């Protein structure tokens, strides 16, 4: 591969894998492990990386990003943990109901949008619920490097505390668990106060938690560059709408339960993507003309771009109005 900038293409390179383990952890969360179909080691990744899992759900292709939670030093397999979302669009339900040991699946090469700053003097991890998954890999990496870290992990109940026992047993002094049903909450201001200079904080969890950590750290004088977060937005259903794709000369309909990106792909037009969660910026698409309102849901475009309607992130954002033309 050359060092030249690569043309944006439809997703990262793909890997054919076999499901090597399916481990239910509690009522909502199940771990899935993948090995390469050809038996060789999987590509190297760094902690915080995710992979996009391709599901063939009765002819419909579902592509969901999941953080890789296994130890980055062990590339004999990748592990992801999937929280079942009964109200969701069906990807997690498909994983829980249909995926069995021995199944052949396709996943993408890992992409890291949430990497550790290894210059940091200390790492503070803040997880909410299933947001624990990237930290499982980060903790493995930090333990191997001998770096300083601590985890603050908020879960709903003891029964839903995914990996709480394993983490508390292995790292008793570093793991702090907070149970919602026992009215325990992370004392964030106290936690941020007095951390040594050069500490980095990482947060993965619900949007409210991420915003809270950013705002609290900023108010305490922390530089923005020392506060890292990752949130994959799920495409939300919405009213169907019609889009003209100029370059491809096609008019497509986006259904209520599919994303604009999925509708583009269904029409046979190749569109770039990586995270499918509004975070990476790969699917950024120019708007040629529009008459209506955008429903922007990404974390990539800035407020001006959201307001002026010049661009849209088709993986998570939608449109309501008379007409929309895209440069795709």
């Amino acid at each position, binding site marked *: 591969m050359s060092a030249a900038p690569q043309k944006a293409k439809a997703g990262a390179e793909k890997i054919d894998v076999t499901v090597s383990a399916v481990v239910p952890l509690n009522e909502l969360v199940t771990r899935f492990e993948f090995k390469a179909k050809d038996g060789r080691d999987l590509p190297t990744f760094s902690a915080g990386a995710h992979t996009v899992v391709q599901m063939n759900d009765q002819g419909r292709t579902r592509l969901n990003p999941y953080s890789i939670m296994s130890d980055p030093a062990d590339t004999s397999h990748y592990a992801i943990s999937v929280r079942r979302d009964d109200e969701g669009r069906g990807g997690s339900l498909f994983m829980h109901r249909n995926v069995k040991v021995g199944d052949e699946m396709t996943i993408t090469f890992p992409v890291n949008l949430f990497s550790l700053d290894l210059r940091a*003097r200390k790492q503070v991890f803040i997880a909410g619920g299933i947001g624990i998954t990237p930290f499982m890999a980060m903790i493995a990496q930090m333990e191997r490097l001998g770096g300083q870290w601590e985890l603050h992990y908020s879960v709903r109940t003891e029964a839903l505390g995914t990996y709480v026992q394993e983490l508390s047993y292995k790292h008793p002094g570093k793991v702090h668990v907070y149970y919602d049903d026992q009215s325990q909450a992370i004392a964030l201001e106290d936690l941020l106060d*007095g951390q040594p*200079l*050069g500490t980095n904080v990482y947060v993965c969890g619900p949007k409210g938690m991420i915003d809270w950590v950013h705002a609290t750290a900023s108010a*305490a*004088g922390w530089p923005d560059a*020392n506060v890292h977060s990752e949130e994959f937005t799920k495409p939300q259903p919405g009213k169907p709408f019609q889009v003209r794709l100029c370059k491809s000369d096609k008019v497509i309909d986006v259904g209520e339960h599919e994303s604009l990106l999925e509708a583009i792909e269904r029409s046979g037009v190749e569109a770039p993507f990586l995270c499918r969660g509004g975070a990476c910026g790969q699917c950024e698409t120019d708007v040629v003309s529009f008459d209506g309102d955008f429903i922007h849901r990404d974390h990539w475009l800035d407020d001006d771009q959201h307001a002026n309607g010049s661009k849209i992130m088709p993986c998570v954002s939608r449109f309501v109005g008379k007409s929309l033309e895209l440069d795709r």
Partner: protein
Amino acid sequence: MIADAEGAEAILELAAQDPDLMTKSHIIFIPKGTNYTQALRDLKPAQFYEGPSYEAAVQRIRHVLAEAKMGLQVYLTGTEGLMGQAQNEAMQAGIPHSAIQTEHRGSVARRMQCVHCKGITEDVITDPFVCSHCGLNLFVRDHYSRRLAAYQGVCIDAEDPGNVPEPQELYT
């Protein structure tokens, strides 16, 4: 707050805007022949230190940074050499350069590294200049190293020794 020479004026202006700032401030000042020390002391900062040179003050800067907690704000003002070197210390202590505030005051002299002998010449005000270590005639480049806190000086008469243009004062 770390300042040298006319950088004191920036601190005096800040204190005039927000006198409360001083109750939380630690000022490290290197006068470089100026007379701002008493005016800075009169601001009654939480801590005040005057050092005879940057080299003498760097021990204290390192100690302060090593003991500091997140939330510390670093403000550097004065010459480029002072700001660059102190920024380097702050970055090594874990503050991203984008979070360090700097305000240039006073001399426009550059801190130069000779690419040939690696020696640093402080307060260079002409281009070309003579390396204070190896004696080569050096051209003042705009290539700056954040790690070294210095601009790059390259031999100007390598092909034709002795053919050295008349030195010009920088930024004139």
